[in-house]
Structures are given as structure tokens and as C-alpha cells.
């Protein structure tokens, strides 16, 4: 393990621990409420919001949704992107042309606005946000995997398999996919970081799941219920900080993984 991987994993472990704590807290509704907008004190270490809810508790509960949506959204988008990329890169001809055009089209269409539109049509729920991210965040992964599959195609061991008469479908699933797993897993970790930011953005706009509040939901309420204008900084600094630190931890881990693979000097720009 290199230094970046260690830093990334330790931060992520802390956040996961926090998310596990949330199961002990339960639901926010049945707490005894404190005074509204009380600044940080011994009783409420991070203060309270406009409803008198404890910010620290909201933060711990929010970590669960933010992490889970980020993880599942990234998982779906990586699976879709890897399969499309591997198929497109390995099969030249019509399939590659069609998939290539689809990848290009979805790389050009701005993702965030499209996600906002799709999420607005679907009812705001945990799984719908996961689906929106999964369906719309795969093109970059597909492009990277496609390039790698393209290289693999002319690798000697694949050529010998072809000469031996192995079917292309067999080669793709038995030999190409396992060989793009490295690039796909690094991509997955980076996608978690993106998915956490996207979930936060959608929730900030008001498209989050109301029954599963996340860190983005806290920022949404700070904005719409006037905590910002009230100057209650303790209501929005912690969730924003949590989003940034978590997203950064996944970026650091992803960069560490990419470094290990020595993919290319340009890997940094694929992160953003």
C-alpha cells in the first residue's frame, strides 16, 4: 500500500464508522428537541437547526444516505460503463460504431442538468437517485475501458485465442473483462467521489429523498429555511465539510490505486 491509499482508507473507515453509528441513533423525529438555532455548546456539540434538531445527530444520520447512494450509484455506473466499454472496444464494426456514438453523445450532453430533469420526473427516493446516477454517469468509464479493450485486442494472448477459434463473446467475458478490472476498479473509487457530490447536489436542489436525509439535504434546508441569512454557520459548515472530506478521501484512494497501476501521467485529469 502506498501513502495515498493509506490516507484514503483511514478517512473512509472513519466515515463508514460514522454511518454505522447512525443505526444506533434511529430516526430524527423522536428526539427531544432543543432550542432552535442554538450555537455549539456542551449539550449540542455542533449546535441546532431551525427546528431544534441536533446538527451532530443529523450529520451522523446523513452520512448513511450520502455514503450508500454514492457507493451504489458508482457501482451501477461502473458496471454499465465497463460492459459497454469492453464490448465496444473489442468488437469493431457496427457494434462499436453504435456504442461509440452513444458514448460520444452522452459525453457531450451536460450530465448534471440531465440528472436534474430525470430526478424531477421520478419521485424523490433513495433508489431513484441511485438509478439516475447509475444511468447517466457511465460515459467516462466506458471511454477509458474502451481504450484499454482496444489495446488488449492486439495483445498476443488474445490473438492466439482467436487463432485457436475461441468465440469473441467468450474472449470478452473470460479474458477482456478480467483485464480491464484494474482500470474499472480505480474508476469505481473515483466514481464514488463523484456520486457523493452528485447526490449532494441533487439533494441541495431539493430532489433528495425526504425520508432519508443526507448531507446535501442539510445544505438544502440551510439555504431554503434561512439559516444562511440568520448567520447560523454551524448548520451548514459541518455537512459541507463532511461532503468535501469524504469525496476527497475517495479521490486520494483512487489516485493511489491508479499510481499503483502506473496507468499514465495524464491520469490526474481523468479524475475531474
Amino acid at each position, binding site marked *: 500500500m502506498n501513502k495515498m491509499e493509506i490516507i484514503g482508507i483511514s478517512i473512509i473507515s472513519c466515515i463508514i464508522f460514522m454511518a454505522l453509528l447512525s443505526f444506533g441513533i434511529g430516526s430524527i423525529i423522536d428526539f427531544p428537541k432543543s432550542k432552535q438555532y442554538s450555537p455549539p455548546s456542551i449539550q449540542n456539540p455542533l449546535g441546532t437547526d431551525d427546528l431544534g434538531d441536533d446538527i451532530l445527530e443529523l450529520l451522523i444520520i446523513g452520512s448513511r444516505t450520502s455514503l450508500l447512494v454514492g457507493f451504489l450509484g458508482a457501482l451501477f455506473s461502473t458496471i454499465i460503463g465497463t460492459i459497454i466499454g469492453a464490448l465496444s472496444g473489442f468488437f469493431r464494426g457496427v457494434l462499436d460504431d453504435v456504442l461509440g456514438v452513444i458514448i460520444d*453523445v452522452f459525453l*457531450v450532453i451536460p*450530465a448534471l*442538468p440531465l440528472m436534474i430533469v*430525470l430526478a424531477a*420526473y421520478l419521485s424523490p427516493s433513495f433508489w431513484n437517485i441511485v438509478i439516475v446516477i447509475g444511468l447517466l454517469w457511465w460515459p467516462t468509464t466506458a471511454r477509458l475501458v474502451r481504450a484499454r479493450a482496444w489495446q488488449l485486442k492486439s495483445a498476443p494472448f488474445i490473438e492466439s485465442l482467436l487463432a485457436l477459434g475461441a468465440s469473441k463473446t467468450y474472449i470478452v467475458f473470460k479474458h477482456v473483462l478480467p483485464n480491464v478490472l484494474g482500470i474499472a476498479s480505480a474508476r469505481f473509487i473515483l466514481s464514488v467521489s463523484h456520486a457523493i457530490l452528485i447526490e449532494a447536489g441533487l439533494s441541495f436542489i431539493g*430532489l433528495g429523498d425526504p425520508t432519508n436525509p443526507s448531507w446535501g439535504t442539510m445544505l438544502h434546508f440551510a439555504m431554503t429555511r434561512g439559516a444562511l441569512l440568520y448567520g447560523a454557520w454551524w448548520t451548514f459548515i459541518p455537512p*459541507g465539510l463532511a461532503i468535501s472530506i469524504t469525496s476527497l478521501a475517495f479521490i486520494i484512494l483512487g489516485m493511489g490505486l491508479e499510481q499503483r497501476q502506473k496507468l499514465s501521467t495524464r491520469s490526474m*485529469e481523468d479524475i*475531474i
Partner: protein
Amino acid sequence: MKSFKKSSFFLKILRYGFTIFIIISINFILPRMMPGDPLVFLFGEEVYGAAIRNPQLLQSLSEKYGLDKSLSEQFLIYIGNIINGDFGQSFSFGRSVAEIIAERIPLTLMLTIPSTILSLFIGTLLGLSLGFNSNSHLKRSVSSFLIALHSIPSYWFAMLLLLVFSLWLNLTPTGGAPPKDANIISILHHIALPFSLLTILNIAYISIIIRGLTMEIAEEPFVMTARSKGLSWIKLRIRHLLLPSLAPFLSLAAMELGFAFSGALLVEIAFSWPGIGYTMWQAVVERDYPLLQGAFTAVSLIVVLANAIADVLSYIFDPRIRMGENE
């Protein structure tokens, strides 16, 4: 042979036409695919409620959008409406969507275009310098910092700026656009925070990409030759690093405009800057689907257009693409 290469360039442009077609199709399919009557999405709950009780109104609304016809006929009517600039009625504003969008696009452009130009300039210089001798301690930490900026949600950054500069220091307004008859001072006063934030984020994005391009080119043998010839720092960078990357730079500029647009959406919301992003937010809050789709179409068209222009420019400027060597 040459005509074939030319045609592959036109295929690329054709692809943008196809992208626009996909965007319009998404807009068409979504309200019709979702469970429930598409009329709810097209006219809002209120009109729908009235229409349910008034069969005549229902009939006339259905006819206007051709909802009683087959899907393919509906699609033709839809495209016809869009070509005529009819994006439907916004039910929360009670006005035509096209009118609202036309009013608000200038506000977004006012923010994104100057910010893009400034950040392309600063970001390129920064990226060139970071990509050259990129292993120095300082340069590595600056690059890491720029990457770290990407994990900060822009709207949260905006809230922090508002807290410090508007609430605590009382230097800037807490958001909103300048009034219609505002003088230049008032405009600058209102635009200062959103503009600075957007520019910082854009610089971080551009410089990391330029850094990558520079690092790639800096490894090429001709750069070593140029350095051993004793070419000056500035000349080397401009002639050997910047010029070969002009074509990728142009497509970067276009991508960057797309990025700036998406980034501006959330920044606008936090600053209540009534551009396209803020409009999308208002549309989401009111569940005003025609307005939401209109705003989405406007943003996408601008991004597609910017990409197409970049392709044309790199075709003109880069002989490698013109001669088809790039493929």
C-alpha cells in the same frame, strides 16, 4: 482518399445533430413514459384538475399537443413546435417558456463567458508551468490543492463566501441580480462573488488538464532538442508546448464552457443569480416541467454548439486533423 477524410469530419458534425435529436427525444419521451397522465407534466396539477372536470378543455389541450394521435405523429408535432420556438407554457410563471429562457440566458452568459475567458488565460499559464518540471515539491502540492478544490461542492463554497463577505463583512449583497437600471458599480457589486467563485473553480479545472497535456508533450524528444539548443523559457513554452496543443486546447475550451455551464447552475442557485441554473431550481421547486425542460434544452444546445465550434476550429487550425492523420 481525401474526400473520405473530409467526410469523416462531417460525420463528426453530423453526430452533434444527432445529439440534439437525442436531447429533444429525451424531452419528448420523459413526460409520456412516466406513470400518470402526461397532461399533468405538460400543464401542471392545477390545469389538469380543471381539465378533468371540463371535457371540452381537456379535448382542446389534447388536440393542441396531439395527445390523441399516435406517438410518431405526436413527435412530429413536438418537433414542429420546437422549430417554431414554442417550448410550451410555464405554469408557475403563466408565461411562455421561450420568453423566460430568452430573458435569463443573458444573465448566465454574463457570468460564464467572462469567467471562461479569464480562467482559460490564467489556467493555461498555470497548467503550463505546473506541467513542466512537474516533480518539484511546490508544483506537486499546488496540483494536489487544485484537485482537492474539485471535491468541494460549489454551492457550499458559495454559502461560505456569502457568510464571510455579505453577513460578516457586509461588503456584498446576499444574492440576486442587479436591478434593471443599475450602473456599472452596482453590477460589479452583485456579480463579484459568483464571478470569483466560478473563475476559481474553472481555473482549477483547466490548469489540471493543461498540466496533463504539457507533461505529455514535455516528454517528447523535440522538446529536449529545443532545450539543449538553449531556447528561452517563454519561447519553448509557446512554440513547442502551447502550439502543438492548440487543437486539444480548443476542444478543452469548448468542454470548459460546458463545465462552466453545469458548474454555474449550482453557483447561481446559491447566489440567487437569476440565470438558467436558478431557473432550473425554480422549476424543480414548483415542479414546472415545461420550464425545466426548456432550461435543460437551452443549456444542452449551448454546450453542443460550443463543442461543434471547437471541432470546426481545430479542423481549421490543426493540419493533423485536416489531413486525417489523427485517426
